[in-house]
């Protein structure tokens, strides 16, 4: 039957640097050398930290954590594209981006060793970096509220929210994109589509061909990008930020990437995916291709690489030493931060707690 079509939509895609590290000259953003090297360095540091954490976890020196190896490009490039006044609103797989934003190198260890101290941002920093968020998709809404506040205060700044592919199934994701669009809030939503939500493959998470098309539901500019291509990530985020600063409202970016390691150290991917699949994605991982490009561009060579690896190993070693030297974790600190005001009932429980603690010490 002949029916009217009343609206049309398209989903664009961006890749600048392909899996072999070849650049599409038409799309080359011509980033300055120091910016390119800065991005690369953070990615290398993120990878090194991630791998060290894995080791520490296996040795029982920190608790369960979720590695981000293979996903360095998107959060690092986004963080590098961001301005100081922008807010970084992460989930739990943006280690690289967090470090770029000034998180102390010791924080990941502290956090994954079970101390809230790992959430503290340096007093000197702008502190526009929210702590790791574990309730899937819930942080998307915080970004919207922050965006609204920035707009209300007429700050030229935006909130950048990260979430996984699985996160797009949660109601909070939907509500966040809708609110952001209605408010035309300066927010950049970045879904790290790493193909898996624990054991759930992307194709079973949702029936849509792309995650990017979910933005159509909110009339939101949306794009799918190669999330392992640091240049595409940088360009797409910069564009989205520009739009946000200029009052153009939110953007949704689907960054196609891959979780090369286990979901968390408690997970065994062997139960649900093949190593062949993993191998294939290792061919497309972001560090190698960026290095190839930098080398081809002649702004990087093997000596520099070696020096960088040595330097970064020392940094990571140093951070671990510092972390392990930390010790003064006051036991009753939770009583200090239930409320911002003092209450007799909480103080009474604190006394009870401390008495108990003393007695426990005696038990031992």
């Amino acid at each position, binding site marked *: 039957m002949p029916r009217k079509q009343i609206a049309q939509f398209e989903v664009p895609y961006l890749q600048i640097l392909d899996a072999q590290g070849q650049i599409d000259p038409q799309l080359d953003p011509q980033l300055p050398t120091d910016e390119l090297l800065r991005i690369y360095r953070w990615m290398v540091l993120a990878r090194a930290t991630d791998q060290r954490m894995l080791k520490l976890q296996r040795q029982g020196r920190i608790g369960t954590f979720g590695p981000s190896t293979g996903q360095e490009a998107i959060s690092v490039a986004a963080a590098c594209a961001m301005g100081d006044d922008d807010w970084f609103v992460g989930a739990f797989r943006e280690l690289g981006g967090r470090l770029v934003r000034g998180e102390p190198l010791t924080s990941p260890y502290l956090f994954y060793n079970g101390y809230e101290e790992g959430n503290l*941002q340096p007093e000197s920093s702008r*502190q526009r970096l929210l702590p790791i968020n574990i309730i899937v998709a819930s942080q998307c*809404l915080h970004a*919207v509220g922050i965006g609204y506040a920035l707009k*209300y205060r007429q700050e030229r700044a935006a909130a950048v929210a990260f979430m996984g592919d699985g996160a797009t199934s949660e109601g909070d994701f939907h509500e966040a994109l809708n*609110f952001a669009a209605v408010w035309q809030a300066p927010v950049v939503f970045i879904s790290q589509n790493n193909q898996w939500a624990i054991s759930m493959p992307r194709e079973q998470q949702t029936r849509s061909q792309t995650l990017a098309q979910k933005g159509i539901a909110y009339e939101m500019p949306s794009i799918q990008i190669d999330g392992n291509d640091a240049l595409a990530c940088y360009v797409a985020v910069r564009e989205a930020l520009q739009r946000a600063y200029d009052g153009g409202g939110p953007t949704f970016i689907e960054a196609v990437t891959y979780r090369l390691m286990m979901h968390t150290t408690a997970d065994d991917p062997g139960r649900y995916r093949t190593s062949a699949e993993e191998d294939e994605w290792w061919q497309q991982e972001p560090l190698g291709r960026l290095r190839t490009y930098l080398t081809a561009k002649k702004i990087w060579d093997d000596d520099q690489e070696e020096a960088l690896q040595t330097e970064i190993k020392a940094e990571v070693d140093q951070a671990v030493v510092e972390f392990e030297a930390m010790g003064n974790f006051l036991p009753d600190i939770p009583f200090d*931060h239930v*409320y911002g*005001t003092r209450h007799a009932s909480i103080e009474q429980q604190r006394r009870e707690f401390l008495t108990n603690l003393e007695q426990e010490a005696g038990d031992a």
Partner: protein
Amino acid sequence: MPKLNMVQAINLGLAQEMARDDSVIVMGEDVGVDGGVFRVTDQLIEKFGAERVLDTPLAESAILGSAIGMALAGLRPVAEMQFSGFSYLMLAQWEGHASRYRARTLGQFTVPLVVRMPFGGGVRALEHHSESREAYYAHTPGSKVLIPSGPRNARALIVAAIRDPDPVVFMEPKHSYRAFREEVPEAEEVGKIGKAQLVQEGNDLTVISWGAMMRPTRKAVAAVTEQRGAGIEVIDLLTIAPMDAGAVVASVTKTGRCVVVQEAPRSFSVASEIIALLNDEALLYLEAPVKRLTGYDVVTPYFGREKSYIPTVGRIVRGIEETLDF
């Protein structure tokens, strides 16, 4: 001093705080142009503009979740849940974020915000519009839960809630919205969070209640006092959490008898906690079991039957008498 009902009194408090501090933002479903389905936010959009009085899309988790973001970024949002019965849609944001941000960051990030919500029955409303579930919020560490009982304390407490450094659930007993008026001074009055109000002193028995139940409670107390000349002490809890344990314990230590009047279902409730508190601190002073006059542990009936399920003056009178006579 103008005589205001509770709706007007809260409206006054909101308007004054908005005038005082441009970081105060009101938001929720129908709070703007419509002025709120109960008119609590009436005229605020005219006075402060649509940037500060936000008619949001229909999504409770988003209302709280975005309010949390605003609070993190330095605003002081006052978000409305149109009815408490729909607030469970935001409980994950409440339990997971609003109540935790301070602890999670050892005080570095805080979320000073207020969630207002009408609750309770007795207004012949549809399903989900009559429940009392203050215990959910009270049981959540890091939450402050306030329930005013009249226009004057409602105004003072909403002001206190807005200025408080912590997230506050402000539960408005909708049955009391227009039930009576009180003189509410134009001049600033700031309630004290964490303090119960000693409504009336007495030596024979303590009645503890809050919200809409304060009215039948006071009537019942008046009746018993008149009939028996008993000295009944009355406490209006006002803050449910963190509770004013001192006031409760001091009173019952003195009177030795206690009745708790609450609209919510009985089990695992605020009344239960009051009894537990008295057990901890005043057991040896108790001359009778503490009596819980409460809703029953049934699914809140539709309004055709609801009346019998909400404590009445007669039931409270009898409860007090039984406890006096125990």
